[in-house]
């Protein structure tokens, strides 16, 4: 009896010491990313150096999007502190109040596009949706813009677009001649009309990155809208494929701190590191075809012309592209999605 009580007290004591040590010394942040190669690259390029700089250690988890985040927050005591998501999901999560506000005294937003951060989230990297084509299908004259994508007379051949409307609506409007800075709010009516026109020439509406790469590599289509990172791997595999950043769409990956996290202060420091120009400057070399979300990265770092040509965020390439307005998608995505899926399958 006495012995048992003594043992119990000992247990409590040990637990208290453990708790105290984790509070004072080296915090462990749990970061949940989207898994796969992307998370591996992000971790090596951004997260590890940022954690080291902030004096914390990180443990990584994977998740599959905003639904999982919602479940975590609703549980009241999330096991993740920081999540990496697509920017549209960050925008939705922010609207639903799933995140702690970011302290912009700690996290510096200098060098960021206004569309690249919100009150409680900030972009950590960029990706591009670009126009890619088979060089064996367009030998003499290849398409150079979305206008050419819609010009089936001058550029016959099979085309592919994504099965989800984000970026595709923008592409359509750019192809219809809408000016880059006049894209938002999107003219959905015009976009759907123009999509209906091109529909007979769309062979595949792809629904995953792997599928998009496969149809280009296997010559199922001759020209398509595809993620820059995916087309890069197709080219690396030796397929006769080229792409252009001209008229490309810039999207963001983002980070946010889960509401109810017990390590908010450390998480703020960690995110500040991730978006700092110095660490962002690692992206062009370590993650070609992705880009830094902080344009100051190109001021801090020195890059070879080859690296700059590949990076979607080099000053030259970024000028050709348009950033996505995640807030517009946050507010309009559901109805657009329905119209888009109706159009695809009808």
């Amino acid at each position, binding site marked *: 009896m006495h012995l048992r009580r003594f043992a119990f007290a000992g247990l409590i004591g040990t637990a208290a010491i453990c708790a105290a040590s984790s509070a004072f010394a080296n915090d462990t942040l749990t970061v949940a990313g989207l898994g796969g190669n992307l998370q591996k690259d992000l971790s090596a390029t951004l997260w590890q150096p940022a954690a080291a700089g902030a004096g914390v250690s990180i443990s990584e988890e994977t998740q599959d999007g905003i639904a999982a985040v919602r479940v975590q927050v609703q549980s009241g005591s999330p096991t993740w502190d920081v999540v990496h998501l697509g920017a549209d999901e960050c925008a*939705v999560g922010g609207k639903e109040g799933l995140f702690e506000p970011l302290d912009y005294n700690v996290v510096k937003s200098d060098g960021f596009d206004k569309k690249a951060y919100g009150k409680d989230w900030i972009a950590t990297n960029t990706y591009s949706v670009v126009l890619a084509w088979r060089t064996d299908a367009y030998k003499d004259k290849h398409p150079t813009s979305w206008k050419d994508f819609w010009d089936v007379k001058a550029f016959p051949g099979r085309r592919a677009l994504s099965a*989800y409307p984000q970026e595709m609506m923008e592409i359509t409007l750019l192809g219809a001649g809408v000016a880059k800075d006049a894209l938002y709010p999107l003219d959905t009516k015009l976009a759907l009309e123009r999509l209906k026109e091109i529909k007979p020439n769309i062979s*595949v509406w792809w629904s995953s990155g792997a599928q998009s790469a496969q149809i280009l590599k296997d010559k199922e289509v001759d020209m398509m809208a595809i993620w820059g990172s995916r087309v890069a791997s197709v080219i690396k595999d030796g397929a006769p494929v080229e792409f252009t950043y001209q008229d490309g769409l810039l999207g963001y990956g983002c980070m946010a701190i889960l509401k109810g996290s017990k390590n908010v202060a450390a998480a703020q420091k960690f995110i500040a590191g991730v978006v700092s120009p110095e660490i962002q400057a690692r992206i062009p070399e370590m993650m070609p075809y992705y880009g830094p979300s902080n344009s100051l990265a190109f001021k801090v770092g020195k890059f070879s012309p080859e690296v700059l040509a590949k990076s979607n965020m080099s000053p030259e390439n970024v000028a050709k592209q348009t950033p996505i307005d995640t807030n517009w998608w946050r507010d309009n995505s559901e109805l657009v999605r*329905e119209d888009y*899926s109706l159009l*695809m399958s009808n």
Partner: protein
Amino acid sequence: MSAAADEAPSLNVELLGADERRHRFAMFGLSVPALLLVALVLLAPFSWLTWLSLFDASGALSSENYARLLRPAYINSFLSTLEVSALVTGICVLLGYPVAYLLSQLSQRTAQILLVFIILPFWTSVLVRTYAWLVLLQREGIINTWLKQLGLISESLPLVNNLTGTVIGMVHVMLPFLILPLYSSMRAIDPVYLKAAANCGASPAQAFRQVFLPLSAPGLGAGGALTFVLCLGFYLTPALLGGGRVAMWSTQIADAVSKFANWGAASALSVALLVVTSLILLLMRWGVQRLGTSVGEH
């Protein structure tokens, strides 16, 4: 003597009653694991799903998730799901009935060997089989390449990333589900009925149509219903071979969960699918019973 005779009717009544109850309880006990399993993996998730479907994204009680189902995009995908399922089931019946018939007429031993070939695809994952179809059917795929080499076509045929490819892939996956129940029901048909029909004056074709077909109708109904219902919820093959053109209900559910994190919407979609599936099963059961009794009376 007379006292014993009076007592005899109530002898051991309580003991025997208790014995009977114990026996029944033991029999009930045997079914407890199965009942628990059903409750755990079927009733509980379904109740939870139904519960979720009653709340909107903000967590308030609303009919929003069901109202959404009436919007054109959902009605369209619902109708297209029914169409694709009916088409696939129809083709499966056309292809599967003769196979099942042939198997049922062979010796038990030969039939069992051939059945292995029908069951064989079950041992390969649907994903692998679906990708195999992609390799065969695509623009630069094996079939189009051969046809072009043989000079039968000059331009590749659009065999995949559309309804054609989806139906081919689904029929391949579904065929065993139709053949197996059909075959076993055909096996159970006594060949003497066909002799009797011939003796009555029925040609082989008449005997088949007026006797064999109605007698195999329950098996055909069971196989057809199974195939149709499996098609209704089929996700993988339409998603991979449809090229985005084949709007299946299952795709909507998957998107609602994994792409758009809308559990309420996904739940409402699932509940609707379940309700429709149950209705169709009931309808088919009723239809098969009618078919079984009406064919042959003409």
